[in-house]
Protein backbone atom coordinates (compact mmCIF):
# COMPACT_ATOMS: atom_id res chain seq x y z
CA UNK A 1 0.00 0.00 0.00
CA UNK A 2 2.67 2.42 1.09
CA UNK A 3 4.90 1.35 -1.75
CA UNK A 4 2.09 1.94 -4.21
CA UNK A 5 1.56 5.42 -2.82
CA UNK A 6 5.26 6.19 -3.19
CA UNK A 7 5.24 4.81 -6.72
CA UNK A 8 2.27 6.95 -7.74
CA UNK A 9 3.89 10.10 -6.34
CA UNK A 10 7.09 9.53 -8.28
CA UNK A 11 5.10 8.69 -11.40
CA UNK A 12 3.44 12.10 -11.15
CA UNK A 13 6.75 13.88 -10.65
CA UNK A 14 7.13 16.52 -13.31
CA UNK A 15 3.67 15.95 -14.79
CA UNK A 16 0.94 18.50 -15.24
CA UNK A 17 -2.54 17.05 -15.28
CA UNK A 18 -5.53 19.23 -16.12
CA UNK A 19 -8.88 17.59 -15.57
CA UNK A 20 -12.34 18.88 -16.44
CA UNK A 21 -11.24 22.44 -15.95
CA UNK A 22 -13.98 25.05 -16.27
CA UNK A 23 -13.72 28.81 -15.86
CA UNK A 24 -16.22 31.47 -16.88
CA UNK A 25 -15.92 35.24 -16.91
CA UNK A 26 -19.47 36.57 -16.73
CA UNK A 27 -21.20 35.07 -19.73
CA UNK A 28 -18.06 33.90 -21.46
CA UNK A 29 -16.89 30.34 -21.00
CA UNK A 30 -13.15 30.88 -21.17
CA UNK A 31 -12.29 27.26 -20.41
CA UNK A 32 -14.88 24.55 -20.86
CA UNK A 33 -14.37 21.02 -19.50
CA UNK A 34 -10.73 20.93 -20.55
CA UNK A 35 -8.59 17.88 -19.78
CA UNK A 36 -5.04 17.15 -20.90
CA UNK A 37 -1.67 16.22 -19.49
CA UNK A 38 1.92 17.28 -19.98
CA UNK A 39 4.83 14.87 -19.60
CA UNK A 40 8.47 15.25 -18.58
CA UNK A 41 11.27 14.89 -21.09
CA UNK A 42 9.48 16.61 -23.92
CA UNK A 43 8.43 20.04 -25.06
CA UNK A 44 4.67 20.34 -25.28
CA UNK A 45 3.05 23.07 -27.36
CA UNK A 46 -0.17 24.52 -25.94
CA UNK A 47 -1.84 25.95 -29.00
CA UNK A 48 -4.97 27.79 -29.94
CA UNK A 49 -6.09 31.04 -31.52
CA UNK A 50 -6.12 34.25 -29.48
CA UNK A 51 -8.85 34.09 -26.87
CA UNK A 52 -8.98 30.27 -26.90
CA UNK A 53 -8.39 30.16 -23.15
CA UNK A 54 -4.68 29.31 -23.04
CA UNK A 55 -3.64 31.97 -20.55
CA UNK A 56 -6.67 31.34 -18.35
CA UNK A 57 -5.83 27.63 -18.27
CA UNK A 58 -2.20 28.32 -17.34
CA UNK A 59 -3.29 30.76 -14.63
CA UNK A 60 -5.56 28.06 -13.16
CA UNK A 61 -2.69 25.53 -13.24
CA UNK A 62 -0.49 28.05 -11.41
CA UNK A 63 -3.01 28.84 -8.68
CA UNK A 64 -3.34 32.50 -9.71
CA UNK A 65 -6.92 31.98 -10.89
CA UNK A 66 -9.51 29.76 -9.31
CA UNK A 67 -11.42 27.41 -11.62
CA UNK A 68 -15.23 27.22 -11.35
CA UNK A 69 -14.93 23.44 -11.36
CA UNK A 70 -12.37 20.80 -12.17
CA UNK A 71 -8.72 21.47 -11.51
CA UNK A 72 -5.11 20.82 -12.23
CA UNK A 73 -2.20 19.15 -10.47
CA UNK A 74 1.50 19.83 -10.70
CA UNK A 75 3.67 16.80 -9.84
CA UNK A 76 0.54 15.21 -8.36
CA UNK A 77 -0.56 18.13 -6.19
CA UNK A 78 -2.78 21.18 -6.64
CA UNK A 79 -0.51 24.23 -6.95
CA UNK A 80 -1.49 25.73 -3.56
CA UNK A 81 -0.34 22.53 -1.84
CA UNK A 82 3.17 22.67 -3.32
CA UNK A 83 5.52 23.33 -0.42
CA UNK A 84 8.46 24.46 -2.50
CA UNK A 85 6.79 25.73 -5.67
CA UNK A 86 9.93 27.50 -6.92
CA UNK A 87 11.71 24.16 -7.28
CA UNK A 88 8.70 22.34 -8.68
CA UNK A 89 7.67 24.77 -11.40
CA UNK A 90 8.68 28.06 -12.98
CA UNK A 91 6.45 30.20 -15.15
CA UNK A 92 6.90 32.99 -17.66
CA UNK A 93 3.56 34.73 -18.06
CA UNK A 94 2.51 36.83 -20.99
CA UNK A 95 2.73 40.34 -19.65
CA UNK A 96 5.91 41.19 -17.82
CA UNK A 97 5.99 41.44 -14.05
CA UNK A 98 8.69 43.83 -12.87
CA UNK A 99 8.96 46.97 -10.82
CA UNK A 100 10.39 49.43 -13.37
CA UNK A 101 12.70 51.15 -10.88
CA UNK A 102 14.25 47.93 -9.57
CA UNK A 103 17.40 46.69 -11.31
CA UNK A 104 17.32 43.31 -13.03
CA UNK A 105 19.80 41.89 -10.56
CA UNK A 106 17.86 43.20 -7.54
CA UNK A 107 14.65 41.83 -9.05
CA UNK A 108 16.25 38.38 -9.19
CA UNK A 109 17.66 38.73 -5.67
CA UNK A 110 14.19 39.57 -4.32
CA UNK A 111 12.75 36.39 -5.79
CA UNK A 112 15.84 34.32 -5.03
CA UNK A 113 15.05 35.07 -1.38
CA UNK A 114 11.43 34.05 -1.99
CA UNK A 115 12.49 30.79 -3.65
CA UNK A 116 14.95 30.04 -0.87
CA UNK A 117 17.99 29.83 -3.15
CA UNK A 118 21.32 31.58 -2.54
CA UNK A 119 21.97 35.02 -4.05
CA UNK A 120 24.63 33.54 -6.33
CA UNK A 121 21.77 31.84 -8.19
CA UNK A 122 20.50 35.28 -9.25
CA UNK A 123 23.79 35.91 -11.07
CA UNK A 124 23.74 32.41 -12.57
CA UNK A 125 20.33 32.84 -14.17
CA UNK A 126 21.23 36.35 -15.27
CA UNK A 127 24.16 34.83 -17.15
CA UNK A 128 22.02 31.96 -18.45
CA UNK A 129 19.73 34.40 -20.27
CA UNK A 130 22.62 36.63 -21.37
CA UNK A 131 21.63 39.67 -19.32
CA UNK A 132 24.72 39.99 -17.10
CA UNK A 133 25.83 43.32 -18.65
CA UNK A 134 22.33 44.81 -18.15
CA UNK A 135 21.93 43.50 -14.60
CA UNK A 136 22.53 46.78 -12.83
CA UNK A 137 20.01 48.78 -14.83
CA UNK A 138 16.38 49.40 -14.00
CA UNK A 139 13.96 47.12 -15.80
CA UNK A 140 11.95 50.16 -16.89
CA UNK A 141 14.45 50.78 -19.69
CA UNK A 142 14.44 47.19 -20.96
CA UNK A 143 13.18 46.17 -24.38
CA UNK A 144 10.40 43.59 -24.65
CA UNK A 145 12.96 40.93 -25.59
CA UNK A 146 15.10 41.72 -22.54
CA UNK A 147 12.03 41.55 -20.33
CA UNK A 148 11.19 38.13 -21.74
CA UNK A 149 14.71 36.98 -20.94
CA UNK A 150 14.47 38.37 -17.42
CA UNK A 151 11.11 36.69 -16.91
CA UNK A 152 12.68 33.39 -18.00
CA UNK A 153 15.58 33.99 -15.59
CA UNK A 154 13.07 34.57 -12.77
CA UNK A 155 11.30 31.32 -13.64
CA UNK A 156 14.62 29.44 -13.61
CA UNK A 157 15.68 30.71 -10.16
CA UNK A 158 14.52 27.62 -8.29
CA UNK A 159 15.95 25.27 -10.95
CA UNK A 160 12.40 23.97 -11.48
CA UNK A 161 11.40 20.52 -12.69
CA UNK A 162 8.67 22.05 -14.86
CA UNK A 163 8.81 25.18 -16.98
CA UNK A 164 5.73 26.95 -18.35
CA UNK A 165 6.07 29.74 -20.90
CA UNK A 166 3.11 31.75 -22.14
CA UNK A 167 3.77 33.11 -25.66
CA UNK A 168 7.55 33.21 -25.09
CA UNK A 169 8.40 34.25 -28.64
CA UNK A 170 6.65 37.63 -28.25
CA UNK A 171 9.23 40.36 -28.52
CA UNK A 172 12.17 38.07 -29.22
CA UNK A 173 14.20 38.74 -32.35
CA UNK A 174 14.92 35.82 -34.72
CA UNK A 175 18.25 35.21 -33.02
CA UNK A 176 16.51 35.16 -29.64
CA UNK A 177 13.95 32.68 -30.90
CA UNK A 178 16.67 30.30 -32.10
CA UNK A 179 18.43 30.67 -28.74
CA UNK A 180 15.19 30.00 -26.82
CA UNK A 181 14.40 27.00 -29.00
CA UNK A 182 17.74 25.31 -28.32
CA UNK A 183 17.55 26.15 -24.60
CA UNK A 184 14.08 24.63 -24.25
CA UNK A 185 15.08 21.53 -26.27
CA UNK A 186 18.10 21.13 -24.02
CA UNK A 187 16.05 21.51 -20.83
CA UNK A 188 13.54 18.89 -21.94
CA UNK A 189 15.52 16.38 -23.98
CA UNK A 190 18.88 16.41 -22.19
CA UNK A 191 17.89 17.39 -18.66
CA UNK A 192 14.53 15.60 -18.69
CA UNK A 193 12.46 18.55 -17.52
CA UNK A 194 8.87 19.23 -18.46
CA UNK A 195 8.44 22.19 -20.80
CA UNK A 196 5.07 23.64 -21.78
CA UNK A 197 4.93 26.57 -24.18
CA UNK A 198 1.80 28.29 -25.41
CA UNK A 199 1.44 29.96 -28.76
CA UNK A 200 -1.23 31.05 -31.18
CA UNK A 201 0.93 29.97 -34.11
CA UNK A 202 1.85 26.35 -34.74
CA UNK A 203 4.59 27.42 -37.14
CA UNK A 204 6.23 29.39 -34.33
CA UNK A 205 6.74 26.31 -32.17
CA UNK A 206 6.76 23.60 -34.85
CA UNK A 207 10.52 23.14 -34.62
CA UNK A 208 10.53 23.17 -30.82
CA UNK A 209 7.71 20.90 -29.68
CA UNK A 210 7.34 17.12 -29.57
CA UNK A 211 3.72 17.08 -28.56
CA UNK A 212 0.81 19.43 -28.97
CA UNK A 213 -2.34 20.23 -27.03
CA UNK A 214 -4.65 22.28 -29.23
CA UNK A 215 -7.64 24.14 -27.83
CA UNK A 216 -10.26 26.39 -29.35
CA UNK A 217 -12.98 28.29 -27.51
CA UNK A 218 -11.91 26.75 -24.24
CA UNK A 219 -12.26 23.16 -25.44
CA UNK A 220 -9.72 20.52 -26.38
CA UNK A 221 -9.64 19.86 -30.11
CA UNK A 222 -6.50 17.75 -30.37
CA UNK A 223 -3.90 16.20 -28.11
CA UNK A 224 -1.05 14.13 -29.45
CA UNK A 225 2.39 14.05 -30.99
CA UNK A 226 3.44 16.43 -33.70
CA UNK A 227 3.70 13.35 -35.92
CA UNK A 228 -0.05 12.77 -35.44
CA UNK A 229 -0.69 16.22 -36.82
CA UNK A 230 1.66 15.59 -39.71
CA UNK A 231 -0.28 12.36 -40.40
CA UNK A 232 -3.53 14.31 -40.52
CA UNK A 233 -2.30 16.38 -43.40
CA UNK A 234 -4.70 15.20 -46.11
CA UNK A 235 -2.91 15.11 -49.41
CA UNK A 236 -5.00 16.24 -52.34
CA UNK A 237 -4.51 15.61 -56.01
CA UNK A 238 -4.57 18.48 -58.46
CA UNK A 239 -5.52 17.53 -62.04
CA UNK A 240 -5.84 19.70 -65.13
CA UNK A 241 -7.91 18.38 -68.01
CA UNK A 242 -9.98 19.89 -70.86
CA UNK A 243 -12.84 17.59 -69.85
CA UNK A 244 -13.31 17.83 -66.09
CA UNK A 245 -16.87 16.55 -66.28
CA UNK A 246 -15.83 13.26 -67.87
CA UNK A 247 -13.00 12.79 -65.41
CA UNK A 248 -15.38 13.26 -62.49
CA UNK A 249 -17.70 10.61 -63.92
CA UNK A 250 -14.79 8.23 -64.31
CA UNK A 251 -13.44 8.78 -60.80
CA UNK A 252 -16.74 8.61 -58.94
CA UNK A 253 -16.65 4.80 -58.46
CA UNK A 254 -13.22 5.14 -56.77
CA UNK A 255 -14.79 7.10 -53.89
CA UNK A 256 -12.96 10.26 -54.81
CA UNK A 257 -14.25 13.58 -53.51
CA UNK A 258 -13.90 16.81 -55.39
CA UNK A 259 -12.92 19.69 -53.11
CA UNK A 260 -12.45 22.30 -55.81
CA UNK A 261 -13.48 22.54 -59.44
CA UNK A 262 -12.64 24.99 -62.21
CA UNK A 263 -12.96 25.03 -66.04
CA UNK A 264 -9.66 23.27 -66.51
CA UNK A 265 -9.08 21.30 -63.41
CA UNK A 266 -10.11 19.57 -60.25
CA UNK A 267 -8.76 19.21 -56.76
CA UNK A 268 -9.47 15.77 -55.38
CA UNK A 269 -9.08 13.82 -52.18
CA UNK A 270 -9.52 10.13 -51.48
CA UNK A 271 -7.16 8.61 -54.03
CA UNK A 272 -3.42 8.83 -54.72
CA UNK A 273 -2.06 10.41 -57.92
CA UNK A 274 -1.27 6.96 -59.33
CA UNK A 275 -4.90 5.80 -59.11
CA UNK A 276 -6.19 9.03 -60.67
CA UNK A 277 -3.65 8.80 -63.51
CA UNK A 278 -4.45 5.17 -64.17
CA UNK A 279 -8.21 5.75 -64.27
CA UNK A 280 -7.77 8.65 -66.69
CA UNK A 281 -5.48 6.63 -68.95
CA UNK A 282 -7.98 3.72 -69.05
CA UNK A 283 -10.85 6.07 -69.88
CA UNK A 284 -8.73 7.78 -72.50
CA UNK A 285 -8.99 11.20 -70.84
CA UNK A 286 -6.44 13.83 -71.73
CA UNK A 287 -4.51 15.18 -68.70
CA UNK A 288 -2.34 18.30 -68.68
CA UNK A 289 -1.30 18.20 -65.06
CA UNK A 290 -1.30 15.63 -62.33
CA UNK A 291 0.36 16.38 -59.01
CA UNK A 292 0.05 15.87 -55.27
CA UNK A 293 -0.50 18.86 -53.00
CA UNK A 294 0.42 18.43 -49.35
CA UNK A 295 -1.23 20.76 -46.82
CA UNK A 296 0.99 22.61 -44.42
CA UNK A 297 0.80 21.93 -40.69
CA UNK A 298 -0.63 25.39 -40.30
CA UNK A 299 -3.55 24.39 -42.56
CA UNK A 300 -4.29 21.41 -40.33
CA UNK A 301 -4.07 23.64 -37.27
CA UNK A 302 -6.42 26.21 -38.80
CA UNK A 303 -8.82 23.48 -39.83
CA UNK A 304 -8.84 22.00 -36.33
CA UNK A 305 -9.35 25.30 -34.56
CA UNK A 306 -11.61 27.00 -37.09
CA UNK A 307 -14.16 24.20 -37.47
CA UNK A 308 -14.71 24.45 -33.81
CA UNK A 309 -14.83 28.21 -33.84
CA UNK A 310 -17.22 28.45 -36.78
CA UNK A 311 -19.53 25.76 -35.41
CA UNK A 312 -19.68 27.41 -32.02
CA UNK A 313 -20.12 30.86 -33.52
CA UNK A 314 -22.99 29.60 -35.65
CA UNK A 315 -24.59 27.93 -32.67
CA UNK A 316 -24.38 31.18 -30.75
CA UNK A 317 -25.56 33.52 -33.45
CA UNK A 318 -28.33 31.25 -34.74
CA UNK A 319 -31.52 33.31 -35.00
CA UNK A 320 -34.35 32.20 -32.73
CA UNK A 321 -36.84 29.82 -34.37
CA UNK A 322 -39.73 31.76 -35.89
Amino acid at each position, binding site marked *: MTQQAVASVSADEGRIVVSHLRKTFGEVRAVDDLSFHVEPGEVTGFLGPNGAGKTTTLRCVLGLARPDSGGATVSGKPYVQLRDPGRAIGAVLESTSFHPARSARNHLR*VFAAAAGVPDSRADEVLALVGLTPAGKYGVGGFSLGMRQRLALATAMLGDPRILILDEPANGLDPEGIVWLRSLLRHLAKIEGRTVLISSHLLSEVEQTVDRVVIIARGRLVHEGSLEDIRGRRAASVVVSTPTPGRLMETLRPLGVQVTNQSDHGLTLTGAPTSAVGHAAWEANIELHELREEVHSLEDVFLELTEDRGVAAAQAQSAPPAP
Partner: protein
Amino acid sequence: MKRLLREETRKLLTTRLWWGMLLGALALASIGVIAQIATNGLRGNPLPPLTSAATQRSVFASAVSGDTFALIVGIIIVTAEFRHFTSRPTFLLEPRRGRVVAAKLLVATALGLAYGAACAVISVAIAVPWLSLKGVHVDWSSNGVLFVLLGTLLAVAIFAIVGVGVGVIIQSQVVAVSVALAYLLIVEPLLRVIPGVKEVGRFLPGAAAEALTGVQRQGIVQVQPWQGALLLLGWGLLFALAGRAITLSRDIP
Protein backbone atom coordinates in the same frame (compact mmCIF):
# COMPACT_ATOMS: atom_id res chain seq x y z
CA MET B 1 8.24 32.92 6.83
CA LYS B 2 11.96 33.68 6.90
CA ARG B 3 12.05 33.57 3.09
CA LEU B 4 9.03 35.85 2.84
CA LEU B 5 10.52 38.36 5.26
CA ARG B 6 13.79 38.43 3.30
CA GLU B 7 11.83 38.83 0.07
CA GLU B 8 9.66 41.66 1.39
CA THR B 9 12.58 43.46 3.03
CA ARG B 10 14.52 43.35 -0.23
CA LYS B 11 11.52 44.61 -2.19
CA LEU B 12 11.35 47.57 0.16
CA LEU B 13 15.06 48.36 0.08
CA THR B 14 15.55 48.05 -3.70
CA THR B 15 13.35 50.98 -4.71
CA ARG B 16 13.40 54.60 -3.62
CA LEU B 17 9.94 54.38 -2.03
CA TRP B 18 11.09 54.07 1.59
CA TRP B 19 13.28 57.11 1.71
CA GLY B 20 11.03 59.28 -0.43
CA MET B 21 8.19 58.61 1.98
CA LEU B 22 10.51 59.08 4.95
CA LEU B 23 11.43 62.56 3.70
CA GLY B 24 7.71 63.30 3.37
CA ALA B 25 7.00 62.09 6.91
CA LEU B 26 9.88 64.16 8.31
CA ALA B 27 8.71 67.23 6.41
CA LEU B 28 5.15 66.98 7.76
CA ALA B 29 6.38 66.31 11.29
CA SER B 30 8.76 69.30 11.15
CA ILE B 31 6.10 71.64 9.78
CA GLY B 32 3.80 70.71 12.66
CA VAL B 33 6.44 71.40 15.29
CA ILE B 34 7.68 74.61 13.67
CA ALA B 35 4.16 75.98 13.25
CA GLN B 36 3.30 75.38 16.89
CA ILE B 37 6.40 77.08 18.22
CA ALA B 38 6.30 79.95 15.73
CA THR B 39 2.64 80.79 16.30
CA ASN B 40 2.72 80.49 20.08
CA GLY B 41 1.68 83.70 21.74
CA LEU B 42 0.31 85.17 18.52
CA ARG B 43 -3.23 86.46 18.55
CA GLY B 44 -5.68 83.67 17.66
CA ASN B 45 -3.57 80.86 19.12
CA PRO B 46 -5.47 79.81 22.24
CA LEU B 47 -2.67 77.62 23.66
CA PRO B 48 -0.96 78.72 26.85
CA PRO B 49 2.67 79.97 26.59
CA LEU B 50 5.51 77.57 25.73
CA THR B 51 6.51 77.33 29.35
CA SER B 52 3.39 75.30 30.17
CA ALA B 53 3.76 71.52 30.13
CA ALA B 54 0.49 71.11 28.15
CA THR B 55 1.78 73.32 25.36
CA GLN B 56 5.10 71.51 25.30
CA ARG B 57 3.27 68.19 24.95
CA SER B 58 1.22 69.66 22.15
CA VAL B 59 4.35 70.90 20.34
CA PHE B 60 6.03 67.52 20.39
CA ALA B 61 2.80 65.68 19.62
CA SER B 62 2.39 67.56 16.35
CA ALA B 63 5.19 65.41 14.92
CA VAL B 64 2.60 62.63 14.73
CA SER B 65 1.37 64.17 11.46
CA GLY B 66 4.16 62.13 9.78
CA ASP B 67 1.80 59.17 10.15
CA THR B 68 0.11 60.13 6.87
CA PHE B 69 3.23 59.05 5.00
CA ALA B 70 3.49 55.85 7.02
CA LEU B 71 -0.07 55.10 5.93
CA ILE B 72 0.77 55.75 2.28
CA VAL B 73 3.93 53.64 2.38
CA GLY B 74 1.92 50.79 3.91
CA ILE B 75 -0.62 51.05 1.11
CA ILE B 76 2.03 51.13 -1.63
CA ILE B 77 3.88 48.10 -0.23
CA VAL B 78 0.80 46.13 -1.25
CA THR B 79 -0.64 47.99 -4.23
CA ALA B 80 2.70 48.30 -6.08
CA GLU B 81 2.61 44.52 -6.47
CA PHE B 82 -0.65 44.66 -8.37
CA ARG B 83 0.34 47.78 -10.28
CA HIS B 84 3.52 46.23 -11.67
CA PHE B 85 2.24 42.63 -11.67
CA THR B 86 5.00 41.51 -9.31
CA SER B 87 2.01 39.92 -7.57
CA ARG B 88 2.52 37.04 -10.01
CA PRO B 89 6.03 35.88 -9.08
CA THR B 90 5.19 36.68 -5.45
CA PHE B 91 2.16 34.39 -5.29
CA LEU B 92 3.76 31.79 -7.58
CA LEU B 93 6.55 31.40 -5.04
CA GLU B 94 4.14 31.48 -2.08
CA PRO B 95 0.62 30.43 -3.04
CA ARG B 96 -0.59 30.71 0.57
CA ARG B 97 -1.73 34.29 0.19
CA GLY B 98 -2.35 34.98 3.87
CA ARG B 99 1.32 34.38 4.62
CA VAL B 100 2.33 37.00 2.08
CA VAL B 101 0.03 39.50 3.81
CA ALA B 102 1.47 38.54 7.20
CA ALA B 103 5.02 39.14 5.94
CA LYS B 104 4.02 42.53 4.58
CA LEU B 105 2.41 43.45 7.91
CA LEU B 106 5.63 42.56 9.75
CA VAL B 107 7.87 44.46 7.36
CA ALA B 108 5.50 47.46 7.52
CA THR B 109 5.68 47.33 11.33
CA ALA B 110 9.47 47.54 11.26
CA LEU B 111 9.41 50.34 8.70
CA GLY B 112 6.68 52.17 10.64
CA LEU B 113 8.72 52.00 13.86
CA ALA B 114 11.67 53.49 11.98
CA TYR B 115 9.47 56.27 10.58
CA GLY B 116 7.95 56.87 14.02
CA ALA B 117 11.38 57.06 15.64
CA ALA B 118 12.53 59.47 12.91
CA CYS B 119 9.49 61.73 13.47
CA ALA B 120 10.03 61.73 17.25
CA VAL B 121 13.73 62.48 16.82
CA ILE B 122 13.17 65.35 14.43
CA SER B 123 10.62 66.94 16.76
CA VAL B 124 13.25 66.88 19.50
CA ALA B 125 15.96 68.12 17.15
CA ILE B 126 13.86 71.13 16.17
CA ALA B 127 12.05 71.95 19.39
CA VAL B 128 14.75 71.54 22.03
CA PRO B 129 17.35 73.98 20.62
CA TRP B 130 14.64 76.43 19.58
CA LEU B 131 12.98 76.42 22.98
CA SER B 132 16.30 76.86 24.74
CA LEU B 133 17.07 79.81 22.43
CA LYS B 134 13.79 81.28 23.59
CA GLY B 135 14.89 80.68 27.14
CA VAL B 136 12.16 78.11 27.78
CA HIS B 137 13.11 75.40 30.23
CA VAL B 138 11.96 71.90 29.25
CA ASP B 139 11.59 69.71 32.31
CA TRP B 140 11.74 66.17 30.91
CA SER B 141 10.92 64.53 34.22
CA SER B 142 7.55 66.16 34.76
CA ASN B 143 6.11 67.51 31.49
CA GLY B 144 5.05 64.14 30.03
CA VAL B 145 6.81 64.78 26.74
CA LEU B 146 8.59 61.42 26.81
CA PHE B 147 5.18 59.79 26.91
CA VAL B 148 4.10 61.92 23.96
CA LEU B 149 7.17 60.84 21.97
CA LEU B 150 6.38 57.19 22.64
CA GLY B 151 2.80 57.81 21.46
CA THR B 152 4.11 59.44 18.28
CA LEU B 153 6.38 56.47 17.60
CA LEU B 154 3.54 53.98 18.01
CA ALA B 155 0.95 56.01 16.09
CA VAL B 156 3.24 56.31 13.08
CA ALA B 157 4.20 52.63 13.26
CA ILE B 158 0.63 51.40 13.50
CA PHE B 159 -0.43 53.63 10.61
CA ALA B 160 1.94 51.68 8.37
CA ILE B 161 0.10 48.51 9.42
CA VAL B 162 -3.26 50.17 8.71
CA GLY B 163 -1.88 51.11 5.27
CA VAL B 164 -1.12 47.48 4.46
CA GLY B 165 -4.67 46.57 5.46
CA VAL B 166 -6.12 49.28 3.22
CA GLY B 167 -3.91 48.14 0.32
CA VAL B 168 -5.04 44.55 0.66
CA ILE B 169 -8.69 45.62 0.49
CA ILE B 170 -8.30 48.23 -2.27
CA GLN B 171 -5.69 46.90 -4.68
CA SER B 172 -5.68 49.91 -6.97
CA GLN B 173 -2.93 52.26 -5.81
CA VAL B 174 -4.55 55.52 -6.86
CA VAL B 175 -7.93 54.57 -5.41
CA ALA B 176 -6.48 53.24 -2.16
CA VAL B 177 -4.33 56.32 -1.48
CA SER B 178 -7.14 58.72 -2.45
CA VAL B 179 -9.74 56.95 -0.33
CA ALA B 180 -7.44 56.76 2.69
CA LEU B 181 -6.46 60.45 2.53
CA ALA B 182 -10.00 61.64 1.82
CA TYR B 183 -11.25 59.61 4.76
CA LEU B 184 -8.62 60.84 7.21
CA LEU B 185 -8.59 64.47 6.18
CA ILE B 186 -12.24 65.06 5.25
CA VAL B 187 -14.68 62.27 6.06
CA GLU B 188 -13.69 61.41 9.60
CA PRO B 189 -13.35 65.04 10.83
CA LEU B 190 -16.83 65.72 9.42
CA LEU B 191 -18.30 62.59 11.00
CA ARG B 192 -16.93 63.53 14.37
CA VAL B 193 -18.76 66.85 14.55
CA ILE B 194 -22.16 65.32 13.82
CA PRO B 195 -23.88 65.35 17.24
CA GLY B 196 -25.03 61.72 17.30
CA VAL B 197 -21.74 60.38 15.95
CA LYS B 198 -19.48 62.33 18.34
CA GLU B 199 -19.61 59.67 21.04
CA VAL B 200 -18.72 56.71 18.80
CA GLY B 201 -16.43 58.91 16.72
CA ARG B 202 -13.59 58.42 19.18
CA PHE B 203 -13.35 54.78 18.11
CA LEU B 204 -12.61 55.68 14.49
CA PRO B 205 -9.03 55.20 13.19
CA GLY B 206 -8.12 58.90 13.01
CA ALA B 207 -9.39 59.59 16.52
CA ALA B 208 -7.61 56.51 17.86
CA ALA B 209 -4.33 57.80 16.40
CA GLU B 210 -4.85 61.24 17.96
CA ALA B 211 -5.60 59.67 21.32
CA LEU B 212 -2.29 57.80 21.19
CA THR B 213 -0.23 60.89 22.02
CA GLY B 214 -2.61 61.72 24.87
CA VAL B 215 -2.85 65.36 23.82
CA GLN B 216 -6.38 66.60 24.43
CA ARG B 217 -8.02 68.99 22.05
CA GLN B 218 -10.89 71.17 23.09
CA GLY B 219 -14.31 69.62 22.78
CA ILE B 220 -13.05 66.29 21.43
CA VAL B 221 -13.83 63.11 23.30
CA GLN B 222 -10.88 60.71 23.29
CA VAL B 223 -10.09 57.20 24.50
CA GLN B 224 -7.03 56.52 26.66
CA PRO B 225 -3.68 56.38 24.81
CA TRP B 226 -3.22 52.62 25.30
CA GLN B 227 -6.79 52.07 24.14
CA GLY B 228 -6.03 54.18 21.09
CA ALA B 229 -3.01 52.00 20.30
CA LEU B 230 -5.00 48.78 20.53
CA LEU B 231 -7.92 50.28 18.63
CA LEU B 232 -5.74 51.49 15.76
CA LEU B 233 -3.90 48.17 15.59
CA GLY B 234 -7.29 46.45 15.57
CA TRP B 235 -8.44 48.56 12.62
CA GLY B 236 -5.27 47.67 10.68
CA LEU B 237 -5.60 43.94 11.32
CA LEU B 238 -9.33 44.03 10.59
CA PHE B 239 -8.67 45.64 7.21
CA ALA B 240 -5.96 43.10 6.43
CA LEU B 241 -8.13 40.12 7.40
CA ALA B 242 -11.15 41.45 5.51
CA GLY B 243 -8.98 42.13 2.47
CA ARG B 244 -7.50 38.63 2.59
CA ALA B 245 -10.97 37.09 2.85
CA ILE B 246 -12.67 39.23 0.22
CA THR B 247 -10.40 40.91 -2.34
CA LEU B 248 -7.37 38.67 -2.13
CA SER B 249 -9.34 35.45 -2.47
CA ARG B 250 -10.13 36.45 -6.05
CA ASP B 251 -7.90 35.82 -9.05
CA ILE B 252 -4.48 37.48 -8.92
CA PRO B 253 -4.16 40.05 -11.73
